[in-house]
């Protein structure tokens, strides 16, 4: 009997991990966030779930690399999950240079999205983190607006 329960646990784990239901909440957040981006065409989503950072340490962040094309206007949107402890922000980098962000550290103002008018085809990086190094759950969306 114990062996049977062991087998069932293994099966449950396997079925659970491979089931689409495993990421149902995430899919809902992606759909809502993509819709909130406005009249644009969804291209990619970047789901992020991070633990809280250590006191005095660097806030944890998730990095994604993506290829962007010249003469294209993109929109980056960030949405924190309703039950997320921390508020997410998305930053765009070219090499080591910050070239876009949903958070303006000078004014302290947050934006749900920003547009990026790309003039150089190449690899860019986005970092998603939570303010004050809090734990959180969020999704970033890359959308296509138009050719420039």
């Amino acid at each position, binding site marked *: 009997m114990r062996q049977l329960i062991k087998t*069932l646990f293994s099966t449950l784990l396997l079925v659970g991990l*491979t089931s689409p239901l495993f990421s149902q909440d995430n899919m809902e957040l992606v759909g809502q966030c993509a819709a909130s981006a406005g009249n644009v065409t969804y291209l990619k989503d970047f789901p992020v779930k991070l633990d809280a950072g250590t006191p005095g340490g660097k806030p944890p962040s998730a990095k994604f690399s*993506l*290829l962007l094309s010249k003469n294209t206007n993109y929109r980056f949107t960030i949405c924190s999950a309703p039950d997320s402890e921390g508020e997410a922000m998305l930053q765009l980098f070219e090499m080591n240079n910050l*070239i876009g962000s949903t958070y303006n550290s000078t004014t302290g103002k947050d934006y749900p999205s920003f547009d990026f008018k790309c003039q150089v085809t190449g*690899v860019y990086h986005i970092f998603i983190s939570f303010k004050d190094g809090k734990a959180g759950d969020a999704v970033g969306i890359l959308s296509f607006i138009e050719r420039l």
Partner: protein
Amino acid sequence: MIKKCFYILLTVCMLNACGSCGNRGSSSDLEVPDTLMYSDAIIPDDEISGFIDNMSSPVEMAALIKSLDVKFSNKYLASTDNVEDFSTEYQQALNLGIYGLDLGYLNMYNKTNAVLDYISAIKTLADGINVGQFFDFATLRRLSQNDQNLDSLMYISVHSFNQMDRYLRKNKRSNLSVLMITGVWIEGNYLVTQVYKEVPHPELKEKIGEQKIVLDKLMLFLEVFKNDKQLQAIANDLKPLKEQYKDITITIQKGEPQAIEKDGTLVFIQNDVSIVNITDEQVKSIIAKTEEVRNKLISK
């Protein structure tokens, strides 16, 4: 106690299985993919962590062509007639990417009447590599019957591909993910080069030259799987094409970026200027080689 525990577990298992049976092939769900049976095809996570998203976007490639007022033509599309002949996981993943690009092109031009063939072909191939559960065929078929549903059709198509790609990567089947990306890229390059033959617009010429950047990255990904003979065969097919790009140069003049707030939206403007140096002869060679490689890949 043990008996009670057994029944609870059994119920949870059955509920979970039923919850996912609506859009999954019930008999194939727990099949072990071919790729997991070959140890040298499994790549450690740290080796694939340098993946680049949006390497080749069907939406962006089709949008470029449409923005130049180029008329739609189905002669650029890969035929779906032989989809059942793609019997290996490698062929299925590669052609999944090829049809994915074609679907983006059809959607961009709102050719909903032809979409059904492509979503059916994609579903067949996706089931073949056990990712069909992420391709919402029923909804896509319903949406394709009305040309007012373009936004939803685009969203579900692109999102389905992203989910399939992510699932493959997470489940140590990154070789198939790389093949999908390769398929999208080669078909995108085929589309833009074929269009350029008839509409030699400078923006298309530049786009063709810029593919040097993407192909370089793609070749690096393929090289990661150096023990995978079938991926290396595809890398070898692409090498002569890469050779055609070797003398193309791209120079960048740095400019001062701008940040403005317009109608409540934050806009960042990159003021760099990139110049692609590519001759007509080089374009001609790339067009010919792309056609050769693409036609070989879809006929395998």
